[in-house]
């Protein structure tokens, strides 16, 4: 396979520089610079429409950036020569709406990409899948269809699906926003354990408690720009910018 070069080992997990994204007339990202180091948990907060989900979706090119640079483990992912599928296989992505495949059982949801993308055999893929289901507390749901899972279970299964690819990093796009309040805790617990295990994570979220306790860095976005970034406790308790203050006063 050509295209994907071995990454320099000391390269940051994610490096975004001068990123712009326009949807026609609308400019959603206006020059974003952001670095996520290996093993770091970076939480991105901000009002809806601030561009935080678009930023996250640019990192694995679900959205095509208008201009700027994105490097994942040192590899320029906007280079047309790279094998994007190979890069994506190393980046786990968790969606607000789970996006489990409804026509497959939970176990098949976890094995299909392992087999089709990584070329793992049936037995190995199943073993990896079961291990990850156990990790998120859903081993007993292996043979269920997604329609029979609660929202919280579905999201944990989706996390296990991403983990089964043994990704180097995980992107979370408002993973708890579609859940009933009583189901949020289980999902956050899984994410907390994941962070403790050393996983590199970029999390777009409204869960300020999670950002404070688990995050290594907090990024506040508004109107397509990063307004303020830093240690989560500092940003949350003593925001420096008026826009951050005004946002936090509404959500805290």
């Amino acid at each position, binding site marked *: 396979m050509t295209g994907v070069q071995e990454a320099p080992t000391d390269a940051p997990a994610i490096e975004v520089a001068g990123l712009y994204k326009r949807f026609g007339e609308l400019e959603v990202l206006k020059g974003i610079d952001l670095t996520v180091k290996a093993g770091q948990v970076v939480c991105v907060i901000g009002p809806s429409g601030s561009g935080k989900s678009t930023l996250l979706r640019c990192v694995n090119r679900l959205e095509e950036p208008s201009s700027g640079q994105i490097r994942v483990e040192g590899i320029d992912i906007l280079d047309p020569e790279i094998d994007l*599928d190979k890069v994506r296989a190393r980046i786990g992505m968790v969606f607000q709406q789970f*996006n489990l495949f409804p026509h497959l059982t939970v176990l098949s949801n976890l094995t299909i*990409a392992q087999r089709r993308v990584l070329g793992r055999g049936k037995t190995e893929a199943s073993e990896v899948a079961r291990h990850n289901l156990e990790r998120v507390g859903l081993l007993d749901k292996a043979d269920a269809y997604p329609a029979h899972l609660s929202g919280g279970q579905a999201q944990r299964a989706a996390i296990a699906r991403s983990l089964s690819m043994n990704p180097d990093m995980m992107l979370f796009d408002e993973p708890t926003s579609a859940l009933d309040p009583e189901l949020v805790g289980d999902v956050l617990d899984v994410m907390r354990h994941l962070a403790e295990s050393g996983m590199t994570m970029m999390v777009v979220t409204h869960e300020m408690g999670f950002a404070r306790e688990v995050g290594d860095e907090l990024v506040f976005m508004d109107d397509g720009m990063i307004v303020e970034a830093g240690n989560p406790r500092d940003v949350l308790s003593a925001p420096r910018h008026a826009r951050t203050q005004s946002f936090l006063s509404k959500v805290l």
Partner: protein
Amino acid sequence: MRRGVLYALFVALIALVAYAADWGRLREQFLQIDIAREQFPEIITIAAKNTLLFTLIAFVGGLVLGIVLALMKLSTITPYRWLAIGYIELFRGLPALLTIFAMAYVIPIALEVRMPFGQVGAGLVGLILVAGAYMAETIRAGILGVPKGQTEAARSLGMSSGRTMISITLPQAFRIIIPPLTNEFVLLIKDTSLLFIAGSTIQTKELTTFTRDAQSVNANGTPLLMAAMLYLFITIPLTRLVAVLERRMAKAR
């Protein structure tokens, strides 16, 4: 009260039709047991068998063609889209009878080609071309009915666009379009009767051609009534079966 009146009206209507009908003539024209008996076993072993076989061939062929056309129409490559749109408009706009005729007589002469499997093969090609045009639109609608998040999830896992289409999008699209596809199948069963225009041999007669020939030979409509019964005998169990399948799948979702 109101329901009672409606029921009474219904019964009265049936009674009127039964009274008005000339049962003696009907029996004479359409229910000659001797003629009916003479049609066996060929009406089953040749005619009904061919109707089913031709329907299956046209359906499978149309399905494959329909998938290709649907993907072309959804393609980002503009000439592919135009080609698919042109094709679909052409073959949906023409009567199936003319397309079958063209494949059996016009194209072989114009292009100096011989269609495989003789006249019935040429007719079947025409039927496939028409079925593909209709099914393309159905399949396209099914693909568009699969939520965008499904593709995004698959691509995020590193699946290529082709793999995503085969493993994720199409299986879900087909679940959505089972009812309209059943409809296409039933329409095709009946459209096999148009194959007569391509010409047939004794061995390639389907139900309508077979029974129309039997009608002329005997100067009696009995074979036509038998054909009608056999068509229903095929279509009704089929639609029931699909309804059961659909309910089962709904449970799995």
